[in-house]
Structures are given as C-alpha cells and as structure tokens.
C-alpha cells in the first residue's frame, strides 16, 4: 500500500510541475486534419470537462490541474474496481 501512495504522490507532483510546460500545439492527428483543411464536425458529446478544463474556474493552470486530478482519480479507481472483479480470487495476496 505504501508503494501505491508513493507512486500516486509522484504522479501528482509530475502533474503539478509539468502542466505549465505542456504544449498547447495541435497533436499529430489534429495537425494533419488542420493542414488538409478538413473541418472538424460538431461533436455529438462535448464531455463534462471538455479538453481538460474545469467548469468553475477560468485560471488556465487551475482548470487543468483540477480536471487532471479528477481524471487521475477516475483513472485510478475504475481500473482498480475492474481489476478486483476480473482477477482470480485464488491468487496469492501480498
């Protein structure tokens, strides 16, 4: 368990430190679409926090950080739950 806490803290520190340095340039696919002049169609679902923004803050750093932390929590807990359901019970516990 201690290892898990340590790893999560490291990931959060990485997120906090690296957000200001993250590039806002279009990624490979977006660049191709842009350069070909194809219009991106209206999305049928715009998500709850579209493009990693948190609705209640306009600060560009905070909005990314909060949505990132929520995403991190989801990306941790859902695989945990799925893992518990899928794995075999007879395996050796730590």
């Amino acid at each position, binding site marked *: 368990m201690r290892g898990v806490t340590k790893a999560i803290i490291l990931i959060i520190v990485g997120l906090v430190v690296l957000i200001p340095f993250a590039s806002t340039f279009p990624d490979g696919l977006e660049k191709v679409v842009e350069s070909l002049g194809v219009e991106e169609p209206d999305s049928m679902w715009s998500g709850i926090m579209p493009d990693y923004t948190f609705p209640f803050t306009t600060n560009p750093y905070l909005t990314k950080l909060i949505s990132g932390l929520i995403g*991190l929590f989801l990306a941790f807990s859902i695989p945990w739950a*799925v893992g518990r359901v899928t*794995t075999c019970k007879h395996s050796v516990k730590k």
Partner: protein
Amino acid sequence: MHIPDGFLDPYLSVLMYIIALVFLTWAWRGVKKTFPRSFVSVMAVSSAFVFVGQMLNFPIVYGTSGHLVGGTFLALLLGPHAAVISMSIVILIQAVFFADGGISTFGANIFNLAVIGGLSFYAVKLLSNPSSSQKRLSASVFVASWLSVVLGALAAAIQIGVSSMFASVGGVLVTVPAMLFWHVIIGACEAAITTSLTSQFLRVKPTMLNGLAILRGVAYERRY
C-alpha cells in the same frame, strides 16, 4: 491521436467497435485466467500514470505536439491482456469526461491505442529472448514502443482516409503519409520515454515489471 466524433463513416465505426470488442474479450479472458489480484494496485497506478502522460503534450517540431501513449510501458508492467483493459478504461474516461476522442470512434481508438499498444508486447518478445542482455532488451523496448505509435497512427490514417470526410482531400494516399510523418517523430519520443522508464524500473524495482516476467516465462504464482 484520439479520433474525434464524425471523422469515421458509420459502417467503419461499427466495424471498429466489433473488432475492439473481440480484442477486449480476449483481454478480459486473459486477465481472468492469469492476472494475480496482488497486481491490481499496479494496474490502477499505471492507468493513472498513463492518463496523466496522455494529458500532457510535449512539443515536437513545426508547431505540432505529441503525447505519451504508454501502451508498451503498460504491457511491460502488466502483460498484454491487462494492458489492453487498462488502456481501454483510460480511453473511455477521456471520451466520456473530457471529450478527448469520440464516443462513436471509441472502438477505433481502442484498436489504435489500446490493442496495438498492448500487442506491442509481442514485438518485444519477438526481438528479445528470456536470456537477453539488458542492452538488447532496451533496444527491443525502444523498437516496440516506436512501432506501437507508428502502427497506431497508420491504422488511424487508414480509418480516416477511407471515410467520406477525407475523400475530397485525397483519402488514404494523403492521410497515410501525413500521419506517418508526424508520428515517426512522436514515436521516437514515446520510445525514448518508455525505454528510460523501463530501464529505471529494471534497476530500482524489477519485480514490478509483471509483463517482463511473463516474457521471461516466470509464472505469476511462483513470483507473488
């Protein structure tokens, strides 16, 4: 590299959903059969890591950026089956909560990122053998992770290229070279990150690399 809604023709979206479902069933069965419960925490932490890695883009050249996909890294940590499941969950979270990648293109994104990423495990297996030196293993990891990004981009390029939205700009003949151009570079960054992460793990905590244990033919139960 996440394909947004609307880029793929409906028949292709359905086809990719079916293909993704086949691989997810394969992965689910594999996890159920062999994945040890003690490794669930590693699966959760590494999924969180991949989520953050995919959120933070790094600039490459000419005003373009890329981000870590992390498929090969997940496969080395968790083995191919759990890597596919874990990455698929991350893609689902991105699509539902952050509108990063579409809902209708979910199947295609699972195939391009999760399945190809997870299967890059077998590229490492092919390129190295259980007794390989660390150098050879690192080189295999480098090539496999580069391939996972380039092949994922190739698949995405073909999918959008055959769709009607891209027919007017030249279809596959245009999308494939354009996508490959960027992703050959992005893949090199992915490979550098994956290789350095893997070698750090090998140095500090080799027991974490469950995928590598499978690669070397060490049984789960005996190790944990």
